[in-house]
């Protein structure tokens, strides 16, 4: 029988890559995690997608500074009761994207809880990004929250429907992971200190040349 993996069908020589990073998407129900992944992976917005049961996997390779960075993305179910299942997938994650819906306050209030979850199940090397899944609202509050969550690297406002900043989130994460990975290799003795919370604005990170692979 033929190989039906849609990712493998898109690019046949997908086996070659320079870096491989694992990214996990978490956040409350209905905040748009699946839409974010879908938009990034295939460039489409699906109105009629169903809810995620358990975990979904997808993958995309991006080109950063002429290096192939392969991102393995695990999209998790938001409902509390699936936590016992989704927890297994935090393991060895290099990056975590916490998604919340700016128009629903409860999803914002859960952020603290999600970050706790990340603290508990991932290594401290993990990079954390907060994603506001709908834009056009002031983000002052989220930045204020980040003062209390030093792990959070960046807050990005996005819209999967209008395709705003979705790719940037993953490109930023990929280039940041790549940069740190290289630094770690150079300073093999662990001299490099990850300065959490002291990140730059996404717009000012222009040194890396983004290209969709």
């Amino acid at each position, binding site marked *: 029988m033929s190989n039906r*993996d849609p990712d493998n069908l898109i690019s046949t020589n997908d086996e070659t890559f320079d870096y491989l990073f694992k990214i996990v998407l978490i956040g409350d129900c209905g905040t748009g995690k699946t839409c974010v992944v879908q938009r990034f992976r295939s460039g489409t917005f699906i109105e009629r997608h*169903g809810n995620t049961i358990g*975990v979904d*996997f997808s993958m995309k390779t991006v080109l950063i500074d002429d290096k192939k960075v392969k991102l*393995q993305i695990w999209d998790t179910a938001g409902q509390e009761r699936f936590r016992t299942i989704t927890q297994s997938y935090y*393991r060895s994650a290099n990056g975590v994207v916490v998604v919340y819906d700016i128009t629903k306050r409860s999803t914002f209030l859960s952020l603290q809880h999600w970050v706790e979850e990340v603290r508990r199940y991932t*290594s401290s090397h993990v990079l954390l990004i907060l994603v506001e899944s709908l834009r056009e609202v002031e983000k002052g509050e989220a930045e204020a929250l980040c003062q209390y969550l030093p792990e959070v690297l960046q807050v990005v406002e996005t819209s999967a429907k209008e395709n705003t900043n979705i790719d940037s989130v993953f490109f930023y994460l990929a280039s940041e992971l790549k940069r740190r990975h290289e630094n770690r290799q150079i300073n093999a003795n662990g001299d490099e*200190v990850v300065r959490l919370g002291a990140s730059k604005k996404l717009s000012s990170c222009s040194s890396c040349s983004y290209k969709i692979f």
Partner: protein
Amino acid sequence: MEPKEDEISLDSNIPETYTEMSTPIEKDNLKVRRRNVIETINFASKEENTSDSESNVPLVRMSDSTKAWYDDIIPEIPDIAEYSLSEPLTNRERMKISVIRGSVVNPNLTLGELKLLGCSSEGLVNDDIRRILWPKLLRLSEESNFSVTGLETIHSHIPNEVYQQILKDVARSGSHISQDATQHEIDHFQEQLTQLMCWVLHKHSVLNYYQGYNDIAATVLLVMGLQNGLHVLESISLEFLERFMEKTMEKVNQELFYIFALLERVHPTLLEHLENVELFPHFALAEYTTWYAHKYAENRKLLHRLFDYFLGSPPLMPLYLSTVIVAYRATEIFNTTPDMGHTHKVLCTLPDDLPFETLLIEAKNLYRQYPPESISNDVTEYDRKRKCKEQEWKAKAEASRQEREKQRQLRIIQSTRRIPYRIRSYKTITVVTILALGLYAFLRSSSGLN
């Protein structure tokens, strides 16, 4: 392919006397299902304040040798000419319909034979037949036909956070209705779906909503309609889905390992492969908890046929079907990039052209060959290993964080030590200088003497 297991399982949360009154059954065949105490208490307290009659609930799983028809009513299956057909029937389907019509007129038809009609090739064929026979498979009494009122406000009786969750998932149940449905039709469907689920959840507060329940409910709604669907969904929930509706999903997480325990017997090399890529059987979670309604929402014909099968099978049957499907796709899995992600993805993505009729027979045979009791020890062992692994990862994450923290603290300590270190070096310089001066003075004085 004849009906098997003559066991009767009895919901222990119903007082036993109550059960005995309602069904004359052989005492020695009773098999009490495990329930925890809290649920029993909840149920009891619930019973008192529920105005709805509880008599519609199927209290026991009946023996297959029980007569299929009760209340002295033999259902009438309409002739082929009367069906609302979206596409013409195949010859096999016509044949099956006449088999069903022929069997149903038998006043002594057993429940096992009725289940077999649903399980065997082509299932119950058509939604018009399902509307009549699903309630019979679930042994719903005629009373369940009385229409239920107050559905418009039923949502106000369930906890708001559950209701909000339901609304979110109902809004995402779009794949169950046709692409060209009007906005009005969509709204109507969503409203009914919400009412259907809220009614069951209100009536049985021990049942916790889970994402995926909406897929089962949508399928029931599409076949049965709202009023007739109420008791069908209620009955399915109590008899089959109750294991997914406990406080946590821990039980499901464990039961998924039936797939591994079965693969160990039917395809050990494939199991070895799956374990090597560190895969968990979570790929089958949606199949198991939604009876494939999450995956085949748009393939109604197949989906409804699968429901015919599961309604006539024991609750763990979906896991046997998952196993058979995984084994069938072995080559495809071996050809996939051997890592957890890719393998998970391939297993989650079911092709539309699986030979289901054959696979359903295989699943049934597998169930007969290795019934759940025969492999449950292995399942517990697999689950224990999973828990160990998870503990290990958790400890590793914790250790790595502590290590990181320690290094950070070390850096702080080192930077505060700078002054004492300098003092120490001053001392060295002073001592050396004094010694040098002393030596110089000694040399000078000794040369001065001469």
